[in-house]
């Protein structure tokens, strides 16, 4: 893998510039602020496309800003990657085909460079400012450890060891919290002991009250039925009595209506007439007697007259007697007539008397008196009502009674068959039972009040216990999760180390062999403390005992091996950004020698302000005006 060219348009202080990179060692040289870091940043931006870098790269007030990088893969395929930064952001990757889809481009770049993650790229391909000097002062095992951390954790800020420590601390904290929670839980369970069975007690009591209340309701309902039955009986009797009253009234009214005022008046009239007739008869009898006496006298005086008449007629005497006889006859005829009439009157009176035998001898005034008395009696029986109202009241009572009867019949038909006395007796029993039940309910409710208070206290403690249990469960889960994470991370970390270290040993050994021209060809990393040893004939030599030059060679070997491992063997170009800023001349010469060795197989681009490097590779000179002078 190597970079061929980079073209910057409207990027930071570059208007439009192209530089070409060669195989081997490229020396990009220029003073401070000449644009070295811009080129490095632009190379990395082109691969990552990280939008966070965008604003820092676009030139102030430019009309167009883009970066174009041409690179060649290990399989000698040449790709041209263009990223337009402004006025719009887009990417284009050209090979035999042109790709403009950013996701597809990213996938291809990931395949070519091993990663498009800036941090991974920096750690695999870039040796930062003064990094060599810093690393020289470090122990080799620290170098290996740090690089391993980057390689395996994918981060320099958060190493796997840090994560393991965080998890261990978290689990210890969770254990502490769990112990506290367990104490609280035990305390709450102790406080719950006195309330054992309170729920059952509460339940039994509430059920008991419910049963009592149901029984009471039944009794009260039955009691009401008995009351209705009694009311029904009373109403029935009342109706009967009222009907009797009505009958009585009607009897009285009939009786009053039957009082024979006319007959009695007729009798009185007839009696007066009879009396007159009888008096007439008496008078006639007297007259008849008188006439008969006179006739007798006449006849006595007449005897002589009669005798004389036998011998001669006495006309005056005979006339007198005849008159007397005619008169008597007339009297007798009158008497007979009167007697006949009297007889008829008597017969009528008798007939009338027979018709009004109950009122015999009564006078009309007395009859009126009877009528008035009956009227008073009727009023008394009506009790302030009219007869119509009394009749209506009977209808209403009958209607009420029917309703009552229906209601009783629906639920308690047996009550209709029972005697009133028995009903009263049983109602009394019900009253007794209701009283007892009401007392039982009252007592049970008092007990329930006490039990409820205790239950509430128990519920409060239980609620607290539930909360604590939930807290415990949450902590248990957190601990289980953290333990699982810890175990898994430890496991994969160990596995990766076991995989990584042998590969690192092998690759570092291969590179070291090349750059030391076979002097050293094998290294060993101790698993326990990651100390690095170099094989010399018959033994393994601790790297601390090596010369500084050999240490540098070893470091470069490690760095390149790590780059290989991180990039998946892609042999990425190595970019050195003022990496040897503080090195003295001797160190620089040693370093350059190593770089030249590395550059045999890997493209190296060294960004430096030091013109002394120019002679060791392909120079690319940057002036403060951003002019490039490439010398071949």
């Amino acid at each position, binding site marked *: 893998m190597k970079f061929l060219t980079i073209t910057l348009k409207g990027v930071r202080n570059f208007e439009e510039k192209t530089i070409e990179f060669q195989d081997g060692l490229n020396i990009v040289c220029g003073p401070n602020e000449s644009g070295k870091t811009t080129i490095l940043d632009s190379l990395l931006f082109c691969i990552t496309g990280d939008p966070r870098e965008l604003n820092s790269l676009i030139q102030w007030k430019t009309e167009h800003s883009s970066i174009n990088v041409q690179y060649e893969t290990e399989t000698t395929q040449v790709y041209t990657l263009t990223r337009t930064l402004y006025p719009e952001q887009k990417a284009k990757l050209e090979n035999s085909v042109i790709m403009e889809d950013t996701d597809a481009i990213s996938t291809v770049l990931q395949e070519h460079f091993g990663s498009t993650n800036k941090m991974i790229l920096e750690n695999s391909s870039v040796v930062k400012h003064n990094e060599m000097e810093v690393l020289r002062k470090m122990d080799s095992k620290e170098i290996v450890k740090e690089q391993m951390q980057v390689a395996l954790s994918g981060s320099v800020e958060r190493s796997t060891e840090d994560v393991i420590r965080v998890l261990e601390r978290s689990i210890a904290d969770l254990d502490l919290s769990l112990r506290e929670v367990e104490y609280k839980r035990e305390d709450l369970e102790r406080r719950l002991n006195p309330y054992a069975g309170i729920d059952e007690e509460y339940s039994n009591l509430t059920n008991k009250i419910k049963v009592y209340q149901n029984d009471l309701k039944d009794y009260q309902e039955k009691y009401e039925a008995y009351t209705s039955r009694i009311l029904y009986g009373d109403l029935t009797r009342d109706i009967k009595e009222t009907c009797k009253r009505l009958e009585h009234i009607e009897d009285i009214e009939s009786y009053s209506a039957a009082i024979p005022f006319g007959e009695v008046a007729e009798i009185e009239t007839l009696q007066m007439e009879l009396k007159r007739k009888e008096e007439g008869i008496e008078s006639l009898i007297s007259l008849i007697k008188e006439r008969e006496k006179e006739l007798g006298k006449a006849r006595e005086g007449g005897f002589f007259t009669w005798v004389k008449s036998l011998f001669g007629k006495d006309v005056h005497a005979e006339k007198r007697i005849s008159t007397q006889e005619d008169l008597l006859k007339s009297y007798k005829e009158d008497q007979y007539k009167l007697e006949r009439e009297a007889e008829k009157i008597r017969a009528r009176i008798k007939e009338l008397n027979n018709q009004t035998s109950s009122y015999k001898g009564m006078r009309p005034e007395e009859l009126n008196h009877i009528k008035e008395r009956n009227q008073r009696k009727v009023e008394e029986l009506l009790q302030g009502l009219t007869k119509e109202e009394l009749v209506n009241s009977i209808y209403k009572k009958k209607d009420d009674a029917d309703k009552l009867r229906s209601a009783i019949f629906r639920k308690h038909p047996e009550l209709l068959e029972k005697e009133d006395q028995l009903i009263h007796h049983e109602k009394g029993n019900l009253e007794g039972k209701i009283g007892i039940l009401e007392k039982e309910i009252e007592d049970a409710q008092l007990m329930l009040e006490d039990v409820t208070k205790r239950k509430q206290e128990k519920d409060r403690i239980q609620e607290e216990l539930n909360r604590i249990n939930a807290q415990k469960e949450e902590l248990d889960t957190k601990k289980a999760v953290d333990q*699982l994470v810890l175990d898994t991370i430890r496991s994969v970390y160990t596995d990766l180390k076991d995989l990584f270290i042998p590969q690192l040993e092998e690759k570092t050994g291969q590179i070291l062999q090349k750059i030391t021209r076979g002097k050293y060809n094998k290294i060993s990393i101790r698993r326990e403390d990651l100390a690095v040893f170099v094989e010399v004939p018959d033994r393994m030599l601790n790297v601390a005992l090596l010369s500084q030059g050999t240490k540098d060679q070893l470091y470069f070997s490690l760095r390149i091996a790590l780059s290989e491992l991180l990039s998946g063997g892609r042999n990425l170009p190595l970019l050195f950004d003022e990496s040897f800023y503080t090195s003295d001349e001797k160190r620089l010469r040693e370093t350059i020698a190593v770089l030249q060795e590395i550059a045999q197989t890997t493209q190296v681009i060294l960004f430096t302000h030091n013109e002394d490097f120019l002679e060791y590779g392909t120079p690319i000179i940057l002036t403060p005006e951003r002019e490039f002078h490439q010398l071949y």
Partner: protein
Amino acid sequence: MEPSEGIKTVTEAFKEKMTEQIENEPDEKRREILVKALNRGIELLEGEVI
């Protein structure tokens, strides 16, 4: 140098191992814990939480 397979990061290996366990876990409750563990581990490894 011969090309070699790239070394996985701990995060990648952790994700793979946890995902495999989650996929093969028949117990739902245990699976929930595994999912929580996966998220927790990623958060820690990627530096999102301390």
